């Protein structure tokens, strides 16, 4: 059939049947949304919701201005928080690096035993939030910074381990082949063929996790694991809103600084 003929076929992106199904799908979504909204708001006391702007404004006015003089009692907890994040990250790295090499399919010494174990540890660590780790550890070790450091470390293992083992699995096989062909031993193949390839990813992942840990360690105090979160908890309980606002500002400042440091470092190594 030539293009000039009157009966050029009509092209459509979707068949009529598929268009109908698409419409039905959207309709079902809207119906589901309406039903969910009904269920969700069954027990909502609307008077409170309508009053929300007033309540927010009230708390805002109580919290402002922040009580700057309280700052002198925050330096200590702030320092604790940063130390908790840093030491926790370091401890996490120390445990995550060997795990990552055991978990990566191209470097694991035993596919059937060690690899599943390493993967399980990584998943277990990842599936539990550091706040929950802290709750557990506070009840085991008692309140304080140590529980916080360990909580941060245990959560970091999974994060660093997973990203690092993925980086190891993505390494270029030909470089490994070339090092093998020189007669290098297994440990030399690892340090020459694989480590240089994953080093930038390793630095990036570690600094990124440290940055996240600064944020996480600032709330661990809520469950008794030390740091600035403990101060926040105490201030909230005594309704000391000017202190709360100051603490939130301090946390915000710390996070901005850590994010800036992390971005700088990652930019430098990649």
């Amino acid at each position, binding site marked *: 059939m030539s293009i000039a003929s009157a009966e050029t076929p009509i092209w459509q992106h979707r068949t009529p049947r598929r268009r109908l199904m698409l419409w039905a799908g959207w309709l079902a979504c809207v119906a589901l949304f309406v039903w969910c909204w009904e269920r969700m708001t069954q027990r909502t006391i609307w008077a409170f919701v309508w009053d929300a702007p007033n309540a927010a404004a009230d708390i805002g006015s109580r919290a402002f201005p922040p009580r700057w003089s309280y700052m002198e009692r925050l330096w200590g907890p702030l320092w604790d928080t940063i130390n908790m994040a840093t030491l926790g990250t370091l401890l996490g790295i120390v445990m995550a690096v060997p795990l990552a090499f055991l978990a990566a399919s191209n470097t694991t010494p035993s596919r059937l035993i060690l690899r599943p174990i390493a993967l399980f540890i990584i998943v277990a660590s990842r599936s539990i939030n550091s706040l929950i780790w802290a709750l557990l550890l506070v009840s085991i070790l008692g309140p304080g910074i140590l529980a916080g450091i360990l909580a941060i470390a245990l959560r970091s293992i999974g994060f660093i381990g997973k990203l690092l083992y993925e980086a190891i699995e993505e390494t270029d096989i030909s*470089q490994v082949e*070339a090092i093998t062909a*020189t*007669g*290098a*031993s297994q440990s030399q193949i690892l340090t020459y063929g694989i480590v240089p390839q994953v080093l930038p990813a390793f630095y990036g992942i570690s600094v990124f996790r440290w940055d996240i840990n600064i944020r996480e360690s600032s709330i661990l105090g809520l469950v008794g694991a030390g740091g600035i979160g403990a101060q926040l908890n105490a201030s909230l309980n005594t309704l000391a809103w000017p202190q709360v606002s100051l603490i939130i500002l301090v946390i915000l400042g710390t996070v901005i600084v850590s994010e800036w440091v992390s971005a700088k470092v990652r930019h430098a190594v990649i």
Partner: protein
Amino acid sequence: MLRIEGLTKTYKTGDKALSDVSFEAPQGQVIGLIGPSGAGKSTLIRCINRLVEPSSGAVWLNEVNLPTLRSGELRRARRRIGMIFQEYALVERLTVMENVLSGRLGYVGFWRSFTRRYPGADIANAYRLLDRVGLMAHADKRADALSGGQRQRVGIARALAQNPELLLIDEPTASLDPKTSRQIMRLIVEICRERNLPAIINIHDVVLAQQFSDRIIGLQSGRMVFDGPPSGLTEAVLTQIYGEEDWTAMQKGASEDAEAEAEEKAQAEKMLRAL
């Protein structure tokens, strides 16, 4: 001297990559291994140093049968087999010098290699080799800062740092432009002459193979279908290896390329003299 007897490789999938390949590589001979993609050229080279395990057959290198070696002995044997790769396979984030020294990994212990404290003789030799391949000025640059041709020269220096008795060369020019390809091939052949090294060069480019090898082996779906001097590559033989194609036109075109290159070189020399 290398002697291969009845080398066969069947992959787990049942694909027969090599069947019953036998030949000898005397000292100083450059063997061009040609054949279409999937003919088993790469597999053959990798079966020699056992980056791929052969299914059966013998590979004798100086009275040692490589396929029978256990891992420790295999490492010692690999030290004397230099390998040069298609995509250079340098450790991209290490310096040129570290890459050349990595050719010594089989000879030095773990901590020495880890802390980069190589023996003085190795370092002196590495500088000699860098000078030989013309990269003296680039010793402390990172490998990924070099051009393709320069990287391949580093690859050559790394293989030579092993003080090899045999060179295995896998598509050395496949990622290079025609002119750089010729320079690299020329360098490889010169080095084999200087050191009286046997080399097996796995190569796609029939014309380059003809120009630079002493002997051609043609593979076709895992079997040797040709073994002879480059001049023996007639139209009929090439058709047997690769299938129907206008081979005469291709060879003529290539000789024109070579002439153009020679002319360009002469022109450049004239300009230099004028300066």
